[in-house]
């Protein structure tokens, strides 16, 4: 029994989600190998070898792997899949894109978004926007899994000393090509890795107000900014800031929800936060039912007041 973790990386470094996935793999109880598939990704492979609990790193390097195209990376995973009983991906946009492709080619079911490992073939995962937790058992020979990163602590990024083995890169499928990327530039912590998140809802009323009210609070707390679906749909905040069932799943130490009513789809994305603060002028807002500290107030006066008081 050996587990393979597919690393999330940007060729230069390993992304945090990889560390949580290594912890999930370790909980299965087998040896943990990590695949770094990229281009000029030596630094990322070296970083993966440092992760505590990893016994081997497989580094596949080639131009076909640079942009993380699903067709090519899945082929890379499949090239070595025969050596493994468990193949784990972080449940990030990349991992979700890749894992089912691998599972289907192996003719196995996939277990999505696990939050707990009960045994090597039994896992827990939330369904219905987290309103129920299913315990599922896979009868397939290989378990293809995506790991909800908030369900597992991060493995230590240093302390390991795994051997790095190189593998030939998969050929380009010729069916897809990378055109470009618009990365939101921000000095703030990444949403899914932030210790504190301040999140705004439709009550902010406009993109200008969203920035004007939320940015100083985020700056003061060193927080990442999130948003409800309503705020994103209305164009107040960027798409990748959406917290919820079908957006980002977050579990920071502190989540401050400003002008968010708390639809079940939003709660699904943040209710595992350690401390939740809700600022909302509607006393009936469902967000208050999950908030540790609720402040019934108009956010346009309360948030600036909070910024001043911090």
């Amino acid at each position: 029994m050996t587990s393979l973790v597919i690393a999330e990386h940007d060729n230069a470094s390993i992304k945090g989600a990889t560390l949580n996935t290594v912890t999930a793999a370790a909980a299965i109880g087998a040896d943990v190998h990590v695949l770094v598939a990229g281009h000029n990704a030596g630094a990322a492979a070296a970083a993966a070898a440092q992760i505590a609990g990893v016994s081997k790193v497989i580094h596949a390097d080639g131009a076909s792997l640079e942009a993380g195209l699903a067709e090519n990376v899945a082929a890379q995973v499949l090239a070595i899949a025969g050596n493994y009983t468990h193949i784990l991906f972080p449940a990030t946009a990349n991992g979700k894109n890749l894992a089912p492709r691998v599972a289907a080619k192996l003719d196995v079911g996939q277990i999505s978004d696990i939050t707990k490992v009960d045994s090597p073939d039994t896992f827990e995962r939330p369904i219905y926007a987290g309103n129920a937790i299913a315990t599922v058992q896979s009868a397939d020979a290989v378990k293809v899994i995506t790991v909800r990163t908030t369900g597992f602590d991060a493995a230590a990024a240093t302390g390991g000393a795994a051997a790095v083995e190189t593998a030939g890169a998969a050929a380009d499928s010729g069916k897809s090509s990378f055109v470009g990327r618009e990365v939101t530039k921000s000095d703030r912590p990444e949403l899914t890795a932030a210790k504190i998140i301040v999140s705004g809802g439709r009550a902010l009323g406009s993109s200008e107000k969203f920035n004007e009210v939320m940015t100083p609070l985020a700056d003061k707390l060193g927080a990442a900014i999130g948003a409800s679906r309503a705020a994103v749909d209305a164009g107040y905040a960027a798409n990748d800031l959406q917290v919820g069932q079908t957006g980002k799943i977050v579990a920071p130490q502190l989540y401050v929800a400003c002008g968010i009513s708390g639809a079940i789809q939003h709660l699904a994305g943040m209710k595992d936060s350690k401390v939740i603060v809700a600022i909302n002028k509607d006393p009936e807002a469902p967000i208050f039912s999950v908030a540790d500290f609720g402040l019934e107030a108009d956010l346009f006066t309360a948030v600036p007041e909070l910024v001043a008081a911090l």
Partner: protein
Amino acid sequence: MKVLVAVKRVVDYNVKVRVKSDNSGVDIANVKMSMNPFDEIAVEEAVRLKEKGVVTEVIAVSCGVAQCQETLRTAMAIGADRGILVETAEELQPLAVAKLLKALVDKEQPGLVILGKQAIDDDCNQTGQMLAALADMPQATFASKVELTADKASVTREVDGGLETLSISLPAVITTDLRLNEPRYVTLPNIMKAKKKQLDTFKPEDLGVDVAPRIKTLKVVEPAKRSAGIKVPDVATLVDKLKNVAKVI
């Protein structure tokens, strides 16, 4: 060019489901069912592509119980030209649905298959990618913008940290994200028209697909409840609680 769109019948997104007392699953008896919201976006996109003239026929497919016909009628009321129901009372997991869709892709030879990125019941986010793998097609998941030519699609995808654009050759699979479009309201005349559209029914056996589940659900429980905390009267109290009680700032 034909487009195949997959639609799933799910518990309506406004319904808060309850776990059954014997922990065998969630109680969906007498609960409002609707088309999975992401699939509605998929149908809308296909119909818009037809309205632009790049697509000639939109075929909606649903796999599941007989009542999925209603979901297909909704798809046809949005503008799909005909529907295909793969009818079975068996529990269908994403791999089985992908295999059924693959069989229909072989039959219909569409230039494009559009699916929702995830169903809001099992939250799996697998079927589109699995279909792409089985049919050896390229994939563009989580699409927020689609531009189609005769043999290629340019797709902007919502990824962590921003947007990414891919060019994929057709035939291909696209899965939809929330911001791809806003589905139209179906009008009564279109609902009436949809009732007359062609709807074919197959069984999984007709398509030669084994739909036996691979993953067994052992139990379903309620998540740990988060109890409501306290209301604070003012900002000063809030800051005090955060600093001295919760100690998070």
